[in-house]
């Protein structure tokens, strides 16, 4: 349908009256209750809030891996609710890079092949894929570690491989769910610097959930999620 990068939307992300509730047995657990949010391209946003407040839920909705109970979510020019599962998958491949707290690398694949995964969904040939993977690994400071398996890397290195994987296909948006949550302060610092560079130099829009006020300070803006609504 639309390309999403230059179609005239002022915002990269727009949420209108987004609700999400979970059913647990007979109970309905309301998590998000009428979220309104606009994010301009190139922003670096931190999302904070108490544990269980729905930060991950919100991030997942924006990243197109979960569906709201009610409301509209437009990201990169698409209204996510209107996309079929396969189109949504293709949309994710094109527009979103995910970074998780626990890295979520595939243990049986080397760093190179982990980073290559998103490129397997493109038409790129093997040589071009190799070039881009090496570029991405270089960007996160892991050149020469292509052949290492996740278990041969430290936590900080694993997270950097995960970041390389998130950016290798050049997505519009990076969503990071507590990317430093499992790292010591030194490694956390390196990851944050890296995210900041991705935002400044490569103009990636970043949405980062964090518990750490220091981490949040790197962002342009901090939003707080509490009792199902956002405030700044």
């Amino acid at each position: 349908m639309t390309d999403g990068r230059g179609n005239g939307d002022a915002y990269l992300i727009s949420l209108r009256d987004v609700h999400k509730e979970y059913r647990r047995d007979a109970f309905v657990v309301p998590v998000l209750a009428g979220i309104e949010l606009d994010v301009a391209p190139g922003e670096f946003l931190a999302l904070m809030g108490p544990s269980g407040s729905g930060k991950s839920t919100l991030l997942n909705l924006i990243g197109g891996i979960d569906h709201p109970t009610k409301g509209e979510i437009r990201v990169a020019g698409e209204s996510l609710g209107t996309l079929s599962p396969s189109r949504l998958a293709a949309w994710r491949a094109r527009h979103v890079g995910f970074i998780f707290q626990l890295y979520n690398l595939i243990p049986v694949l080397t760093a190179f092949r982990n980073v290559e995964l998103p490129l397997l969904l493109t038409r790129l040939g093997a040589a071009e894929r190799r070039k881009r993977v090496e570029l991405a690994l270089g960007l996160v400071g892991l050149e020469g570690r292509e052949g290492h398996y996740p278990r041969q890397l430290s936590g900080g290195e694993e997270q950097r491989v995960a970041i390389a994987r998130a950016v290798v296909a050049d997505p519009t948006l990076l969503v990071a769910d507590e990317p430093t949550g499992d790292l010591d302060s030194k490694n956390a610092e390196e990851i944050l610097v890296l995210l900041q560079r991705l935002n400044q130099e490569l103009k990636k829009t970043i949405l980062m959930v964090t518990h750490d006020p220091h981490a949040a300070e790197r962002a342009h803006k901090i939003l707080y999620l509490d009792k199902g609504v956002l405030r700044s």
Partner: protein
Amino acid sequence: MKHLGYVLSHLWHSKRRTFLTVSSIAVALFLFCTLRTVMTSLDAGLRASDDTRLVVRHAASLVFPLPLAYRDRLAQVPGVVQVGYGNWFGGYYQEKKNQFTQFAVDAPTLFDLYPEIVLGPAEREVFLRERTACIAGQALVDKYGWRMGDVIPITGTIYPGEWPLTLRGIYRASTPDANEDAIFFHWELVNEAMPEGRKNLVGIYWLKVSSPSDAPRVSAAVDAIYENSPQPTKTETEKAFQAGFIQMIGNVSFLLSILGSAIIFAILLVTVNTMMMAARERTTEIAVLKTLGFSDGLVLRLVATEAMLLSIAGGVIGCGLAFGIFRKVNFTAGGMFPNFRVLPETVGLGLLLALMMGLLSGLAPAIGAARLPIASSLRKVA
């Protein structure tokens, strides 16, 4: 194709699982090929038998011989056009394990009774003339590397001693169902060497009748003649004779097939379970792939491909081994299955079965993976 690397990485990284799964599927298919070959070789024996040939034997058992004197009387029974006879020799060549069919036969009538045995006229003539000559089937000759004129020493068990036979003819079978792994030589040779009490005894008579419809009448007539003699006979068509023999084995192989099917089914269940466990261990990983934009369909294919590769590998190994081994060792189960050959169609069916096992074992985990909801699968277990 570029996704194959991912699948292979998984197989490579769980070497033990891969090895065990492939092995058990290989065992299942080896078993399948073997059991089916038992059936097909029995069938071939039946097809090769001729409705116009009757077999006359001692009514009590094949191990009791009949007098040679019966020959002339049998020839007079209306409907009989030819009478031949022979003794099962039951020896071996060089070593006990080299067993194959050896028949001491009334050579002059052999080719009339068994037109399936194809031999050139010159070779036939030399064979008939020479007392110690023998003819052997092409397959047997190939197996032991004999040449025309070779002296083949056969060690007797029923007829003790060393029997040097000269190879004077190599016969071919006129139909693929008939076999080429027997030796025929002169009944006279054996008979002459026997002590007084064992002379002039015949293991079985073969009667040629003019048409299959004569068979019941001739059988009844023959058995009636000797009904009250010290050596009563049992006469039946070669097909019935074979079938009786086969029924005995057939009951066993029916039992084996049931056991075999049960084993194959059990292995299938184990494989399904293994694949499901493998997929379940990978719940997070599959959710991650989907997050990266792998579609449900692609994830389904990846998981299914893994199961298929395991099954196909197992199938190729199992069927290949069955095909190769029985050919190499020329397995006959001590002569019970003279033509024990794993047919190409058996291999084909085996591979198809492997493919189906792959599909079945991959189906549930593949569908599970395709349906896996992303967000909740990524949540750390709360």
